[in-house]
């Protein structure tokens, strides 16, 4: 990368000016907005009003930012229980957009936006892209799914707001994605990191050298990914890979994003107030401690979220970033508190399996964790697709690979798991988030 790193509000994209707000000014703004959003939710959202009353609280009890810790949490099941419109704080005539989750585990969750909300969402997405060094003149291929999923439209509006040229490919059809990337001279792409890995593999099969394309940046999110995966992506495609964070319940993509320093993700905290709490007790944790990220929307109209439990495990990084932004950062999300698997009493995270696989051979094969129960005992099997790099035509070499994988997994997880080498394309690939765990245990 040869372009310079911006270090102040003076030489950044105009939309990024709030990123550099002096801290005292930012805290004052946050308090004003917090008081306003609590007032709005208290008056308009019955569930929030009830919970405040149960605690003997009114909006007047929020006199400082620290007082946020008194407020009740909102959790994902609150959105399901009030399906479809129970948490709305705006009448439908003011709502200009609805999005919904896929609802694989029951009723979907529904989120709503006013025109002001869409404008805020667009502005934070512009700030994400600008922080990644993108600008007018960039050609951005948006391979996030368009539709009820927030990813596609969120990134689309942001890229247009930036002034970039958007190629709205949506997800799917890898061959066409690669063709357009090449023929249109695409310079940046947005998609899930696993989908980009799939594009890298497919490009190689088609004889397209990713390194020779104009592509120079990738903005990847919607699922946790690791530093090793970043090195793999950057090495295989000669791009700079950025981690972007967001969730539909808060706004969609654009809650936070890495800058070019890649030392955590800046949270756009003039709109989203971050806290870290103990995932078990819910008690606030000091800065720097690892715990569950809790977010409060400070400016959302249609659907304010007060102290939403994200289930994402991370820590808050305080202190000014070398890029000059004053917005606090979160560490990259490696795991979610609800991703944790308990196998024969041992806590296991899918991200640990990923790092063990990456240690071997240095590439990330497609994998899947399958949980079963045999005679009352949990069994964990990791199915690993054999890649051309891993394949050797001597059976002894394959057995050696199998043993190395087994050893790395046993070592990292601390329990004995079964490793199965499987043929390529036998593990299903979703166009969006990878389904890493199949739980066939019946309780």
């Amino acid at each position, binding site marked *: 990368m040869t372009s310079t790193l911006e270090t102040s509000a003076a030489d950044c994209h105009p939309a990024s000016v709030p990123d550099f707000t002096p801290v005292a000014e930012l805290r004052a703004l946050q308090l004003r907005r917090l008081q306003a959003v609590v007032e709005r939710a208290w008056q308009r959202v019955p569930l929030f009003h009830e919970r405040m009353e149960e605690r003997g609280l009114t909006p007047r009890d929020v006199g400082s930012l620290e007082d946020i810790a008194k407020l009740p949490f909102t959790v994902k099941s609150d959105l399901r229980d009030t399906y479809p419109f129970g948490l709305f704080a705006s009448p439908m005539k003011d709502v200009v957009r609805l999005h919904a989750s896929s609802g694989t585990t029951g009723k979907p969750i529904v989120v709503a936006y006013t025109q002001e909300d869409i404008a805020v969402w667009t502005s934070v997405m512009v700030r994400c892209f600008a922080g990644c060094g993108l600008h007018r003149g960039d050609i951005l291929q948006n391979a996030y799914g368009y539709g009820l999923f927030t990813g596609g439209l969120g990134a689309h509006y942001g890229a247009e707001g930036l002034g970039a040229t958007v190629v709205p490919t949506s997800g799917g059809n890898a061959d066409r994605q690669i063709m357009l990337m090449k023929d249109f001279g695409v310079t940046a792409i947005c998609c899930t990191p696993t989908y980009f890995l799939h594009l890298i593999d497919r490009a190689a*099969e088609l004889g397209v050298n990713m390194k020779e394309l104009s592509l120079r940046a990738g903005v990847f999110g919607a699922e946790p990914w690791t530093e090793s995966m970043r090195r793999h992506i950057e090495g295989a495609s000669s791009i700079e890979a950025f981690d972007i964070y967001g969730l539909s319940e808060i706004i969609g993509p654009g809650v936070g994003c890495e800058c070019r320093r890649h030392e955590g993700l800046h949270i756009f905290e003039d709109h989203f107030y971050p806290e870290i709490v103990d995932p078990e007790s819910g008690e606030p944790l000091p800065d720097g401690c690892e715990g569950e990220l809790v977010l409060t929307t400070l400016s959302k109209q249609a659907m304010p979220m007060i102290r939403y439990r994200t289930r994402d495990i991370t820590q808050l990084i305080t202190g000014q970033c070398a890029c000059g932004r004053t917005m606090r950062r979160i560490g990259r999300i490696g795991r979610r508190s609800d991703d944790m698997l308990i196998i024969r009493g041992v806590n296991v995270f899918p991200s640990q399996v990923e790092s063990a696989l990456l240690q071997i051979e240095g590439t990330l094969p497609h994998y899947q964790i399958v949980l079963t129960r045999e005679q009352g005992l949990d069994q964990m099997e990791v199915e690993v697709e054999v890649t*051309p790099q891993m394949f050797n035509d001597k059976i002894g070499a394959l057995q050696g690979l199998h043993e190395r994988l087994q050893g790395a997994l046993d070592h990292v997880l601390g329990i004995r798991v079964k490793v199965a080498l499987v043929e390529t394309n*036998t593990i299903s690939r979703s166009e969006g988030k990878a389904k890493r765990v199949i739980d066939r245990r019946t309780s």
Partner: protein
Amino acid sequence: MKIQQISLFIENKPGHIAAPARLMAEEGIDIRALFLADTQQYGILRLIVSEPEKAAATLEAHGFVVKVTEVLAVLVVDRPGGLADILGALDGTGINIEYMYAFSDVRGDQAILIFRFADPDAAIAHLQKAGINLLGSKELLKK
């Protein structure tokens, strides 16, 4: 001298050899020799075919993980001691056989041995010095 052999990874499950065999049939590619090295869970299918490059490209296009390796083919008389004579030529040379397999030839009382050596060039030199008949691809594929 060197023969191109196609190796592919397959799971040890019913029906898993059928797919590559069908692909070869559809492309009109003749399978001259086949060998399966397997464990309980997976295996390596090794094929010697009439058009190795086309076969590899077809299999890869259908998602198989394929490696093309070079092997040597040796013609021996199908009689007691035939194999021992060949191996005797390699005694004391330090040449390592990574694996081998054999099939009898339809043309008569001959067998064909397929060898994968760590160092095929050195193996060729030693075998030729001992007057052993190595087959080229044309002769091997001839019916």
